[in-house]
């Protein structure tokens, strides 16, 4: 990418470029910077376009933030050099990710993430790569958040809370073999929970089925405005 502008500019162009634009195009360090910013933001916009889509699962909200945090921690050295990022800056980026998540975070996000079998390996691998604490983007650990979410769902029913917590415990220590209800990780989590064993997860099944059916954002409303040709203004979009 850095050589291309020079190559193009050395050809005879039949257009006169303004000097400041020409200087910018011919600055190699600028293009290095552009490449670095593209790498920096690539995972963020992949996650963004996935989350605003129709088929994104609720459990992927927490996963996307984890992916972004992981991406910032593992930026290639040349990108870090081009963007002049120190270790403290990378820590700051991690804090920013946590801060952004906190503006929308509810324990339900952690519960959906923990109960989607697709992300079991991802969780283990991230914990091995970084520290266990890396997985906790909220204030508490993921398991604590899950328990909080279950508590919120049962309101004041202590017995139901106990039953659901114990079923959740059974889920976390389940043995993964071919007979497992959650072996086919390519299914959507709500479908897996719909097929889960009633004798084991009788109380947890219904609420989790509902939770995994939740959308990831209000982008359906935005799309509706767009399809109805309501033009966005600078004030609100």
């Amino acid at each position, binding site marked *: 990418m850095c050589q291309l502008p020079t190559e193009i500019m050395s050809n005879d162009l039949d257009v006169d470029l303004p000097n400041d634009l020409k200087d910018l195009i011919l600055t190699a360090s600028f293009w290095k910077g552009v490449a670095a910013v593209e790498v920096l933001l690539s995972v963020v916009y992949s996650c963004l376009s996935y989350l605003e889509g129709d088929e994104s699962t609720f459990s992927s909200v927490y996963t996307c933030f984890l992916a972004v945090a992981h991406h910032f921690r593992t930026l290639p050295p040349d990108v870090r050099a081009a963007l002049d*990022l120190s270790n403290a800056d990378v820590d700051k980026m991690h804090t920013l990710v946590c801060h*952004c998540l906190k503006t929308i975070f509810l324990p339900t996000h952690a519960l959906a993430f923990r109960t989607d079998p697709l992300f079991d390996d991802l969780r283990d691998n991230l914990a091995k790569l970084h520290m266990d604490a890396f997985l906790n983007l909220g204030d508490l650990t993921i398991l604590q958040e899950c328990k909080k979410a279950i508590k919120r769902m049962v309101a004041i029913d202590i017995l139901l809370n106990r039953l659901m917590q114990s079923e959740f415990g059974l889920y976390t220590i389940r043995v993964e073999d071919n007979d497992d209800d959650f072996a086919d990780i390519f299914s959507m989590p709500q479908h897996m929970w719909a097929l889960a064993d009633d004798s084991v997860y009788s109380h947890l099944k219904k609420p989790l089925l509902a939770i995994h*059916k939740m*959308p990831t954002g209000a982008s359906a*409303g935005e799309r509706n405005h767009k399809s109805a040709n309501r033009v966005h203004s600078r004030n609100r979009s």
Partner: protein
Amino acid sequence: MTTSSSGDPSTAEAAEHNGNIMASSSTFSNGRAHFDYLTKEENERLRKMFARAIHQTAMPFKAFEHHTWQQFFHALHGAFHIPSTEMIGGDLLRLEYTNIMAEVVRNLKQFVMICLTLDGAINVQGKQIINLMACGPMAFFLEHFSMELRRESAENLYEKLIDSKRRLLLTIRELALGFVSHVVSSDAGDGDANPQQVATMNEHFVGAPMFTFYSDSPSVMIKLRRLCIQDTEFLFAFGCSPHVLHNLCMDLVKEFPVVKLIVKQIVFLVKSVCKIHLIQQLFDKICKEKYGITLVFSYSRKRVGERSETPPSA
């Protein structure tokens, strides 16, 4: 569409040719008018189908008002008349809306969880509009309303939201024993004698689904989310995750000086290229020659539907 006679022999020939077709079709259709017959019900059904096609494909109501279209339909069937623009935009539109909403309700009845989303927009005329969608996770449009910006407080929005939710529940679920809907209680007039209660909460309906709420993150919506989870009307209220990732991009640009500088330069570059038509043409040409593709070179601050502020690099 219209053919005008001119001195050009080829045009004249074409006009004659067209004229022949029209003449033959009109003769044919004139004849058909006497023989073709549609019962009232058939005609009604065809008109509804016609209007449905127009509404589903978002065509202008008067798309078929041109006499050539009318001739075509007349030739096709002598007894069929295209419904008038007023009819398409009036009764038939209302009918189509009722049908679509019935379909929406049929779908929503199956949902075990309904997530309501609110989103506002302002069009170029400065008119504000807020739409209410029901997702589970498939999204259905429920209704839209406008609220003056001065009145757009969390409390007012909450009132609207709760009202819509209650109306939705009334259409998709049965009332629990001992509860009545608003209409019955106000019209009957024997509310005092009758101990029945007006259904307002989730528990007043049989097997109400789990209700949650989603919104973007201006401060009024954050307050609204807090209001939603204060009582049992909504189990959870979330902020929109794509909006937050967009905010993260903005934060990255704001917090890190080098990133900020590069993004500023990129924005300058994009704006400069877009400003001068010749340079934009050159950019398109180079893209075609080098990569064989056409790239959209744009810069925008829109929050949804945008990948990032980084333009495709040349």
